[in-house]
């Protein structure tokens, strides 16, 4: 069970870093927010929601991490990251839109690492 649960966060880390790399490339090439970036944010959002589902399932199953309050904070914050980035990317019609999205990709990756520190039991 544990090893399977590790697949989603690993995918999120890889996807987040890949998204950040591509978005930074767009910034470097002075491109605006594109449909590709928007779609990538959508994929990231779905992955994060799956991760939230896994954690909620763990909590519903009676498991409790030491930092429960922090974990709940992460559950709320995680799905908001790509949504906020998409809004800001659409608002900023310049190279700095993709730059904000790059930050979102990195944040998603960092959140997964932190999540693992908060609750190593579920192998996230």
């Amino acid at each position: 069970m544990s090893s399977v649960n590790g697949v989603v966060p690993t995918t999120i880390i890889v996807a987040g870093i890949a998204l950040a790399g591509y978005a930074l490339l767009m910034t470097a090439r002075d491109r605006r927010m594109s449909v590709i970036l928007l779609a990538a944010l959508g994929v990231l959002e779905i992955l994060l929601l799956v991760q939230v589902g896994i954690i909620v399932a763990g909590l519903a199953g009676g498991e409790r991490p030491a930092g429960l309050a922090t974990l709940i904070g992460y559950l709320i914050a995680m799905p908001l990251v790509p949504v906020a980035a998409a809004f800001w990317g659409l608002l900023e019609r310049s190279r700095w839109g993709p730059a904000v999205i790059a930050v979102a990709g990195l944040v998603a990756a960092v959140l997964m690492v932190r999540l693992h520190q908060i609750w190593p039991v579920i192998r996230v």
Partner: protein
Amino acid sequence: MSPEPTASRPGSTRTGPGRLLIAIYALFALAASARAGVQIATKFGNAPVAYLLSAFAAVVYIVATVTLAVGSPAARRIAVLSCSIELAGVLAVGTWSLADPATFPDATVWSGYGSGYGFVPLVLPVFGLLWLRRWSRRSGTRRTIVTSAGDAGDAAGDGADHGEGGRRGRGAEDVAADGRT
């Protein structure tokens, strides 16, 4: 109002690179407040100094986020102040946490110069100040023309009120012009 090319002339501190800056500031405002809130609510006795400094950092980040987003001359002055406090805070707390680890059994946002956050807390205020300086110079050029067109007495009066702005490397005339808008 017709849209202007933002790349060449941002309308405010919240456009262009400012958007990226505000996004990161908002992120840190959120992270620091949440962290400080949880720490103070659940285990304040463990490391009171560290947790209070986390809360202070959170307030500084919130002020910087809001003032950068507002972008008015008054807001920019507050933003310069909060970015300066932030930079001083990172350097002071960073040094303090290394010199006296006993006071910090638990980390703050600014411990080890922000090493727990990839040193972003150390770099962020520098970029914030550079961005604010660039913007105030740009608007300063424009407003200097307005000042020279008239109201010299008014500008001089405001200049006296805001004289402390000079030590930040800005001309008294810029500050005076800011004060009138």
